[in-house]
C-alpha cells in the first residue's frame, strides 16, 4: 500500500465512516452528434444519501443524470464514453441488460408524466412488466405500499381506479415516485422533480425525498439552491459540461473551493 491510498482511506474513515459507494462515474464524456456535452466527469454517488446536481441551465447535469440509467440510449445521436459503475459493475458493458438496469435505477421526470391509465395501473405498471407479482392480492399489496411510501395513499385510496391524469400536479409527481419505487429500485434519479410544482406540493415532495433516503440512493437535479441545501447530503456543481466541484452540501454552500460555485450559489450568474 502506498501513501496515497492510505491517505484516501483515512479521509473516508474520518469523513463518514459508514458511507459506501453505490455508483461511480469516471472519465465520463457525452456527445450529442458533434457537440460535446460532458467533459471527463468523475463523480461518486454514495449509498442512502441524496446527491444534488446543481449548475446553470445547459451545464450537463441532466445529461449526467440520464447517463446513470442509460436513458440517453433513447436519443439516437447521443454517445457516451468513460465508465459508470453500479455496485462495481460497468453499466455500459454490452452484457448488461438495460431493462434490468432501469429496474434497479428508477427515474422521476421534471414534468409529472403519469400514464393515461388509472392510479392503480400506473403503480402496477412496473411490477407487471417485470413479473414481480402474479396474483391480484400481491399486486394490491405492492400498489398500496408504494403509494404509502410516496405519501399518497391516504389521498387516493378511495379512487384508485380513477385516471392518474386527474390528480393535481403535486399528487401526479408523487404518483410518479410511487410508480418508480413499485419495482424496488436501488437508486432513484430525479430530474428537477419540483420545477412544475407549487411551493406546498414542493414541500411535500422534499419531505418525501428525505424519507426515501433511508431505503434508496437518490440523485436529484435541481435549479433551486434552497432545495439542494434542504434535501441533499452531498452536492456536485456543474458548469459548461465540467464538474466544478463536489463535496458535502454544508461545505459547498458555506465554503466552496471554486469561485464559480461561490458565484453561482450567491446568484452572481446562472
Amino acid at each position: 500500500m502506498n501513501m496515497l491510498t492510505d491517505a484516501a482511506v483515512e479521509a473516508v474513515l474520518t469523513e463518514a465512516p459508514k458511507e459506501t459507494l453505490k455508483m461511480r462515474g469516471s472519465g465520463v464524456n457525452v456527445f450529442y452528434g458533434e457537440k460535446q456535452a460532458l467533459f471527463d466527469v468523475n463523480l461518486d454517488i454514495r449509498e442512502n444519501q441524496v446527491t444534488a446536481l446543481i449548475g446553470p441551465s445547459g451545464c450537463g447535469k441532466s445529461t449526467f443524470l440520464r447517463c446513470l440509467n442509460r436513458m440517453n440510449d433513447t436519443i439516437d445521436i447521443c454517445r457516451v464514453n468513460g465508465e459508470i459503475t453500479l455496485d462495481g459493475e460497468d453499466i455500459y458493458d454490452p452484457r448488461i441488460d438495460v431493462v434490468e438496469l432501469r429496474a434497479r435505477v428508477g427515474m422521476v421526470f421534471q414534468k409529472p408524466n403519469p400514464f393515461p391509465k388509472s392510479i392503480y395501473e400506473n403503480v402496477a405498471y412496473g411490477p407487471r412488466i417485470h413479473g414481480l407479482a402474479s396474483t391480484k392480492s400481491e399486486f394490491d399489496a405492492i400498489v398500496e405500499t408504494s403509494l404509502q411510501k410516496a405519501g399518497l395513499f391516504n389521498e387516493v385510496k378511495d379512487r384508485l381506479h380513477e385516471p392518474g391524469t386527474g390528480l393535481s400536479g403535486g399528487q401526479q409527481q408523487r404518483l410518479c415516485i410511487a410508480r418508480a419505487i413499485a419495482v424496488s429500485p436501488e437508486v432513484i434519479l430525479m430530474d428537477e422533480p419540483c420545477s412544475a410544482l407549487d411551493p406546498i406540493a414542493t414541500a411535500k415532495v422534499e419531505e418525501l425525498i428525505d424519507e426515501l433516503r433511508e431505503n434508496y440512493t437518490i440523485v436529484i437535479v435541481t435549479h433551486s439552491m434552497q432545495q439542494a441545501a434542504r434535501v441533499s447530503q452531498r452536492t456536485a456543481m456543474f458548469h459548461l459540461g465540467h464538474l466544478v466541484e463536489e463535496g458535502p452540501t454544508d461545505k459547498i454552500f458555506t465554503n466552496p473551493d471554486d469561485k464559480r460555485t461561490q458565484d453561482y450559489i450567491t446568484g452572481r450568474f446562472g
Partner: protein
Amino acid sequence: MTGYLFLAILALSLIAFYVGRSTAGRFVAAHGAEVHSRPIYHGAFAAVWVGLPALVLVVFWLLFQDGVIDRLLIASLPESMKQGASPSQLSLYLSEIKNVASGRIFTEPSPEISAAAERYQRWQAIAQWAMVVVALSVSALALYMARTRMAPQFRARQNFERALDIVMILSAAVAIIVTLGIIVSLTYEAIQFFRLVPPHEFFFGLNWEPQIPIREDQVAGTGAFGAVPVFTGTLLIAAIALLVAIPVGLFSAIYLVEFADERVRGIIKPVLEILAGVPTVVYGFFAVLTVAPAIRQAGGMMGIAISPNSALAAGGVMGIMIIPFISSLSDDALRAVPQSMRDGSFAMGATKAETVTRVLLPAALPGIVGGILLAASRAIGETMIVVMAAGLTATLTANPLEGVTTVTVQIVTLLIGDTAFDNPKTLSAFALGLVLFVVTLCLNVLALRIVRRYREKYE
C-alpha cells in the same frame, strides 16, 4: 353576358379600391396620424362595398330568373292549352317552347308555341339587361355611399373586417346548405319509394331482384326489393377490407413511428401515401386482372371452386386501398403521444414492445379507432372496385369466395340507362342511398367524437 357582368363588377370594385386608397392617402397627407385606418383598409372597404352586394344580387337574380320566366310563360299560354293539362304536360310545353326558342325545331310548332317562344326570347333579353342595369347601379350607388362615409376618423378597418366575417359565414353556409339539399332530395325520393314498396319488405326481405314488368301481363312478375343481401354483401366486403387494412396499417404505423429511423421513414411514408392517390378504377383493374385470377388459381390448386367474381378479391384490394387512411391516422395518433410517456415507460425498464402495447397503443387508441372508422366508411362507400371485381348478383352469403354485390354498385346499375321516377326500380336507388348515407354519417360522427375526446386527453 353574365360572365361579362361579373368581370365588370370585379373591375368596378378594383377601381373602388384605388379610389378609396387614394382618398385615404389625401386624408393622411392632410391630417397625418389622426387618420384612423390605414389607406389600404379604406380601399378594401370601398372595394367590398362595390363588389359584394352586386355579386350577391346577381347570384340570387340568376337563381330565380328561370323560375319566374317559366311561371310567366305558363300563365301566358292560352286557356285551351292549360285546360286539364297535368304538371308533366305543362313541363313538356315549356321544354318545347325553349327548344323552339333556341332553334332546335323537330316538327313545325303550333302557332301558340311559336308565339310563346318569341315571348320567351324577349323576356329573357329584358331580364338580362335589367340584371345588368340593376347590378351596375347598385355598384355605383355603393361606391357613392362608401365615398360619402369616408373621413379621416372613419373606422374603415373595422367595417372591412365585418364584411370579411360575412364572406366567411357565407362560405361556411354553402357546405351546410348543400348537405341539407342532399338529405332533402334523398329523403323525398326514398319516401316515394316506400309508398310503392313497404319498408318492412325493403329492410327485411331476403330477395333483391329489382326488375319491373314491362307489360301488365308479363310472367317475370314484379321483382323483389329485399335489401338484406345487398347490405350483407356490403358488410362482407367492408369486413374483408378492414381485415386486410387494420393489421397492415397499424403495424406499418407502429413501425414508422417507433422503430424506423428517419431515412427509412422518409422512403416508406411517401410510398404509403401514394396508395391513397391511386384512382380507384386502377385498383379495379388490379383486382380483376391480377388478384381475382390469382385467388382462383390458388383455389384451383387446393380443389376449391372459386367464382371469377369473388368478394375476397374485391375486399382484399379495397383493403389495400384504405391502408393509408389507417396508417397515416394511426401514425398521427401515436406521434401525438408525448415523449414523456415513452420516457416514463422506458425508465421503468420497459422494452420497446412493452411500451408500444401497454402505453402507446392504449393512449393512442381513440385516434386509431377514429382512423379505422373513417376507413370503414370509405370502404362501405367504395364502388368502382366492387363493380369491377365482385359482380352484380345479390347473393345472401357469408362465403367470401362467392360473388356478392354492394349498395353502391346497385345504385349505379339502377340509375344507368332509362330512368323513370315513377317506378320502384329507379326509386329504390334512393332508398339504398339514404340508408348508406345514414350509416356512413353515423360512422363519421362516431369517429369525430372519438377523435375529439382523444384531443382532450393530454392537458
